């Protein structure tokens, strides 16, 4: 064992104490080390700090390097540029459904008959609605016949077909989800109604989706 003053001089110039291993310091009580250090802290604490600081810097550097590698997988600028489209709904005749592509997904634009609208409104407060919405909430005021929904089943993304199923609307052949004439989920594994995309009537019967 060296003397206290010798240890102190090593520490003050920042070099490692010669002839003395780290474990030799571990036996000291906090009080002893404070006495040895003349109140300037001890080696173990200083090394802990260096370890933690170096470790934190390494984690931070790792995160900075990882982020661009992760972020490159997010949609690229040209993909995002295809955000909105326009469509003239007057081309859709009563009782007809047109499928258009928006952001790589099918969108159903349906011109509903009066009977379909009446059926949709009658079911506005049915008990089996998983995600209760009225027909009015799913269409634009003054354009009741036009229903615009993303044609992708909210279960696992298959395209439902119209005219089959128990509720007169769509039926998804993949896992058996039934949607009604307003595109609301009524039966089956899908958790949500067919999604109504953000759209607005711009001029007359023309809609802008996205």
């Amino acid at each position: 064992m060296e003397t206290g003053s010798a240890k102190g001089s090593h520490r003050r110039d920042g070099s490692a104490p010669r002839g003395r291993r780290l474990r030799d310091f571990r036996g000291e009580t906090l009080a002893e080390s404070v006495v040895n250090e003349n109140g300037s802290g001890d080696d173990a604490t200083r090394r802990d700090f260096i370890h933690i600081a170096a470790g934190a810097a390494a984690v931070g550097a790792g995160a900075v390097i990882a982020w661009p590698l992760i972020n490159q997988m997010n949609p690229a600028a040209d993909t995002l540029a295809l955000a909105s489209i326009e469509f003239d709904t007057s081309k859709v005749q009563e009782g007809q459904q047109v499928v258009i592509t928006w952001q790589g997904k099918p969108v159903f634009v349906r011109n509903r008959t009066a009977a379909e609208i009446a059926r949709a409104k009658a079911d506005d407060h049915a008990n089996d609605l998983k995600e209760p919405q009225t027909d009015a909430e799913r269409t634009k005021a003054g354009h009741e016949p036009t229903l615009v929904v993303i044609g992708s089943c909210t279960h696992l993304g298959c395209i439902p077909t119209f005219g089959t199923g128990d509720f007169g609307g769509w039926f998804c052949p993949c896992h058996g989800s039934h949607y009604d004439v307003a595109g609301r989920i009524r039966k089956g594994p899908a958790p949500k109604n067919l999604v109504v995309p953000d759209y607005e009537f711009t001029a007359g019967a023309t809609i802008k989706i996205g």
Partner: protein
Amino acid sequence: MSEHESTYVPKTGVEKWLDSRLPIIRFGADYMSLPTPKNLNYWWTFGGILALCLVTQIITGIVLAMHYTPNTAMAFASVERIMRDVNGGWLIRYVHANGASMFFIAVYVHMLRGLYYGSYKAPREMIWILGCVIFFLMIATAFLGYVLPWGQMSYWGAEVITNLIGAIPVVGEPVLIWLRGGPAIDNATLNRFFSLHYLLPFVIFGVVVLHLWALHTSGQNNPVGILIPKERAAKDMVPFHPYFTVKDGFAVILFLILFSLFVFFMPNALGHADNYIPANPLQTPAHIVPEWYMLPFYAILRAIPDKFGGVMAMFGAIGVLFILPWLDTSKVRSMRYRPTMRTFFIIFVVVCLGLGWCGGQLPDAPVIGSFKTFNLVDGDLNSFLWLTRFLTAYYFAFFLIIMPLVGLKETPLPVPLSISEPVLTGSDAMTAAAPAQAEKKG
């Protein structure tokens, strides 16, 4: 390998020179002379068969990548070009496509063998867990590879499976878009799937090395399931080569005959005809089914009426395998000496096959005849929906209820003290050895 003394003696000057610098020949020689229990039966040959499958997939895959174009406009045509114009391309592709199925046949046999003979139990938990990791990576790799031809099943399979991630609350949607690289499955998705499909087999290779390292550390299990005491090693063990290289080699030949039957006589029997239709994002095939080896998990997914619940059950069906070593409370490894558990095991195998059958059917279709019985909650009792639910219940009960309870309640048959004993006395049931006593010897 710790208990295995090296017997390699370098002979030539070159070997001596190399041995003192990079003892790679010693490594190989020690590997081939590993003491192996002499009673390993043919169920144990599937490890070697799987190694062959992995190498086959990597080699044929590298060749296919030389001709394939990962672009939505060209992928389908490039696969057809491989089939028609590339010299021997049809052979390489059929070997790769059927090789995936062969890989899964072998891995399922390998896993059921481990399950039956208790190969997952202490001290072999790490071997089993690494095996589960390999199995999970295999499923991921197979799924990614199935997307590449960009046929209808490729596209819609990718659509359905990536949508599973969207079921995760809150973060699901952003993660889904991140994974696909856009709002829908598109060129960005195909490109990254190709990149990852090329990468993952090498990751699998790495985990296989760890799997073997763990195997050589704890030693192989055997049909009797007892740990071989050190003093009996000379009598109960034989070197891996030539005894098991020959046995594995014979099994490999039989397996290659089966493989060839598929490749040369029915190369599309295990695939789906719809995947020869180019991908169409605006039309879902009437009946989406995954490849046969994923049908049991697909059935479990559909059995649960809730979307997130279904996804959890499907991943849980694989996840439960990871904790299997701690669910089994029995002290006896091999089910040869556990008649009660053996019955439950046979039912389990039938249930897994049944789940596979259900996964390929429409959920609402009737199982027997075409009649309706009565409506139970959300479907007719005589439907694949309910059959799948019963089978799913057994699948989970087998691991979570039967395994822990039977291990505590059953009375196993007497376990022999050594692997030679049943052979020498001509009977498995030894009178002298009490149940599980042999275990303590290890």
